[in-house]
């Protein structure tokens, strides 16, 4: 460990955020900027009979009104991942037009865009666009969408399936093992649809420069380079070098800002039509309707155990909604980010996961914090806890019994799962031991017993989790259907004075990259943190990048930077050797200087960098400059893991659940900044609690969203949650130079089943075996009073 790595260094980005000086997209005002408002479908499914824009076009302040007939982006927004049918048929990929053509397929789908001199006038004029619809029947539940006779989302497909998919062992073999199992635990439930709800709504400004025939797109994205690639190469067919995508400060993403959205492309198209900058910022209502949702799986699952409680087989069938169109990474979520995690932390010898992914008349579903992995963890951990209850075993004991034995990925090989992945390193029992010790497991059981006698319903829930982060390598993900590589770019530019600018293709929208990346760069170079600047979020500054999602930034993006630092130090050593008149092999680098081993002869990093740029006295044949860019393509995913425990109290009268304690012990590999890792865990845990107890996007049978505002969609608030008690163990990743695994999604993955298991633990003696999420007071009360 160096001076900075492993320390809770305070964040440098805070200064601007705390004083109101952050620069979010909606904060940007360009000269002569016009404003956009959308005309959106009030129906889930309807034929568009006529769009009359006459009144809107002559309204006060209106610059232009466009509909699909004006031909924006003929190709529509593409999907970035292809998952074909089990029988080899190609994935069904409908065109996702920038403005609805002929039909609307979910509530909120834009039919027209109105551009005006001010936002208020654009809104006023949007109300004057008269759209005539013929409403059609809609289907919103993914299982119902696959029933015969269900309304079709896309007329040219004979049923609603986008694809189907399976992974694991032979189904017949798994079914036979279940038939022969000593005990089989079953669960049927819906992993409910969630709205990501970054507090900053999406915001875009497209600025077309007539003189240069160039665009600048300011966008609240997690992923500027990918947006540029999709926008240019697929949607609008414009040369990539003519588009600059800038994503300054972004107010949270949680997945929802990974994807290339139609509004982004449409604004870019519009700004050339009107030869002016144009801005659109979503309302919260629009965010609910349009920002890709998460989850929405209809699940049927079975887990078989032998007499001792060893898991013998696991079979799951799921219907996983895609929504009306395929969002950027949607097909990967219920498949390669989900089915591949069904091993969990357990030795389960036989696993089969079968997924059907239908279109429904709803907002697109894509990766939302955790993306497929919370869904996998939820069902595994519910099954294990339910199985333990049914077999009269302790839920901790059954987990210890089934854990995969420790392996470090160096001296022992990685663990080959039944569902394709090979875990990098793992040591699972200690996280659970540490968490149980922290919560005082034995004492709690006594307290629970005593409380029950007084009519108080206490419960403790256990969940363990594993995640695949930083998915890679590119060739493998390509073989699995990804239409992009999943490497990262790290560019280290040492300035002549020895100050260092680092350009990363990762993007920070709350994760603190500007601080954390500077910590390890400063340490690796032995220079002060103040001498390091981290630059991200601008395609004109950063060569390329794949953005931030899936807890990949440090493990992949950080490693790319390390590669460039290694190159800097290697070249620096040659310059230092020349200046010190020594052999490179005789030098050592520490604390910002090269020293001839065993002497006090040394040269500082800054002197070497100055020499590199003023190469008067310089090694022969060596290029001047100290500036390296690297692409890092990892050899494998990383696999962080952990254990989460919740203690809840259920109000016997009302069914209201109160979380009394929440304890985590996570292993995210090597930790650069514990303060930031804890912060990531806290936030993730509360998001997971949100799913367990509060949050749910509900569409009614006609496809109207009835929880489309904060008046009906319950977000976790400060008084819904307790302090989160965090602990950790460290099992380094064996295959990346930082030994880091990823922490961004950990909290969300582990917490949801822990809370639900806790509630069931509190109510099991009343005959309650399962409750559909979110565990609202009404649902809990009804479950308690079902008999």
């Amino acid at each position: 460990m160096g001076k900075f790595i492993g320390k809770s260094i305070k964040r440098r980005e805070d200064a601007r955020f705390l004083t109101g000086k952050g620069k979010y997209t909606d904060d940007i005002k360009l000269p002569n900027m016009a404003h956009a408002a959308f005309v959106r479908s009030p129906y889930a499914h309807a034929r568009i009979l006529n769009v009359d824009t006459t009144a809107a076009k002559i309204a006060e302040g209106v610059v232009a009104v466009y509909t699909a007939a004006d031909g924006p982006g003929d190709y529509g927004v593409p999907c970035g991942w292809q998952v074909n049918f089990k029988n080899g048929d190609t994935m069904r990929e409908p065109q996702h037009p920038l403005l609805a053509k002929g039909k609307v397929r979910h509530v909120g789908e834009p039919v027209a865009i109105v551009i005006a001199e001010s936002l208020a006038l654009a809104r006023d004029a949007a109300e004057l666009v008269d759209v005539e619809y013929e409403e059609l029947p809609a289907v919103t539940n993914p299982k119902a969408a696959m029933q015969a006779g269900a309304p079709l989302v896309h007329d040219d497909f004979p049923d609603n399936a986008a694809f189907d998919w399976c992974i694991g062992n032979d189904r017949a073999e798994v079914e036979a093992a279940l038939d022969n199992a000593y005990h089989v635990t079953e669960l049927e439930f819906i992993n409910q649809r969630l709205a990501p709800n970054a507090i900053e709504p999406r915001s875009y400004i497209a600025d077309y420069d007539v003189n240069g025939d160039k665009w600048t797109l300011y966008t609240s994205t997690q992923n500027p380079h990918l947006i540029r690639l999709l926008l240019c190469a697929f949607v609008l067919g414009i040369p990539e070098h003519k588009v600059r995508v800038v994503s300054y400060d972004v107010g949270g993403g949680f997945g929802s800002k990974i994807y290339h959205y139609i509004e982004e492309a449409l604004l870019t198209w519009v700004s050339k039509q009107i030869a002016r900058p144009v801005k659109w910022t979503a309302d919260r209502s629009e965010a609910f309707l349009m920002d890709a949702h998460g989850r929405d799986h209809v699940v049927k699952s079975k887990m078989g155990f032998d007499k001792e409680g060893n898991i013998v087989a696991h079979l799951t069938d799921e219907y996983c909604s895609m929504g009306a169109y395929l969002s950027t990474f949607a097909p990967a979520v219920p498949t390669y980010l989900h089915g591949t995690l069904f091993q969990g932390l357990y030795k389960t010898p036989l696993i089969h996961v079968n997924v059907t992914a239908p279109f429904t008349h709803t907002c697109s579903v894509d990766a939302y914090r955790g993306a497929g992995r919370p869904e996998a963890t939820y069902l595994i951990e519910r099954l294990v806890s339910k199985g333990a209850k049914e077999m009269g075993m302790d839920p901790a004991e059954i987990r210890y019994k089934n854990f995969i034995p420790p392996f470090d990925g160096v001296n022992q090989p990685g663990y080959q799962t039944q569902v394709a992945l090979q875990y990098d390193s793992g040591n699972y029992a200690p996280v659970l031991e540490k968490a149980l010790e922290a919560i005082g497991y034995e004492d709690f059981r006594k307290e629970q017993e005593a409380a029950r006698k007084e009519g108080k319903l206490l419960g403790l829930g256990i969940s363990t989790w594993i995640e695949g982060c930083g998915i890679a390598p590119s060739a493998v993900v390509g073989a699995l259907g990804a239409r992009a590589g999943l490497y990262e770019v790290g560019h280290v530019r040492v300035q002549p004075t020895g100050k260092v600018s680092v350009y990363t293709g990762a993007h920070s929208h709350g994760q603190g990259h500007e601080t954390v990346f500077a910590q390890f760069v400063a340490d690796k170079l032995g220079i002060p943190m103040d001498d390091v600047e981290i630059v991200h979020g601008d395609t004109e500054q950063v060569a390329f990048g794949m953005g931030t999602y899936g807890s990949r930034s440090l493990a992949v993006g950080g490693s790319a930077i390390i590669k460039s630092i290694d190159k800097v130090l290697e070249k620096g050593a040659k310059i230092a050797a020349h200046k010190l008149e020594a052999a490179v092999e005789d030098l050592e680098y520490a604390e910002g200087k090269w020293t001839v081993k065993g002497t006090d002869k040394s040269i500082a990093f800054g002197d070497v960098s100055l020499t590199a740029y003023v190469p008067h006295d310089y090694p022969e044949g060596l290029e001047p400059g100290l500036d390296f860019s690297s692409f890092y393509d990892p050899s494998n995913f990383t696999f962080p893991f952990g254990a989460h425990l919740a203690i809840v109290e259920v109000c016997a009268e009302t069914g209201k659940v109160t979380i009394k304690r929440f304890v985590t012990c996570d292993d995210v590999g090597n930790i650069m900044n514990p303060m930031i890792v804890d912060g990531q865990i806290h936030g993730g845990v509360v998001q997971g609690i949100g799913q367990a107890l509060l949050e749910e996007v509900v569409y009614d049978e006609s496809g109207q969203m009835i929880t489309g505002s904060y008046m009906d969609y319950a977000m976790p608030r400060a008084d819904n949650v307790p302090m989160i008690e965090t602990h950790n163990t460290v099992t380094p990743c064996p295959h990346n130079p930082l030994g880091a695994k990823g922490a961004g999604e950990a909290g969300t993955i582990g917490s949801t089943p822990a809370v639900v298991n806790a509630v069931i633990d509190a109510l099991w003696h009343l005959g309650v075996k399962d409750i559909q999420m979110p565990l609202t007071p009404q649902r809990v009360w009804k479950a308690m009073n079902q008999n």
Partner: protein
Amino acid sequence: MQIKLTVNGKEYSHDVEPRLSLTHYLREVLDLTGTHIGCDTSSCGACTVLLDGRAVKSCTLLAVQADGCEIITIEGMANGSELHPIQAAFKEEHGLQCGFCTPGMVMTAADILKNNPTPTEAEIRHGLEGNYCRCTGYHNIVKSVQRAAETLNQ
């Protein structure tokens, strides 16, 4: 309509449309973009400012309603380059991640601590019920307010 008000100690006078919200006035007219908009229903609290010393949701007030009032926004909290103790506490306790809800949190914390200089954890959580944060899980925000209370009471 002509309005006159004081924002962060400076007097302003503008002719505004009645339908202009106070948030839009601050952001669009005064270029004080630290006050954010996160929802349509007075729920999230990202737009919180102090109006005559009390925390209010500026997205649910018309600029014309603030005529004659004194407003403090996040930009008016620090004393030059010296952070206000509440701002400093948020930095020390890592009470922010993406920073979007932060101005509203800081302004609400100012109201909480003004009315109750020694709040309990439960009182702080209750006091923050009108401010959503999707990043921090509130843990460090609560600790930030606790730390700010300690500093302010010294």
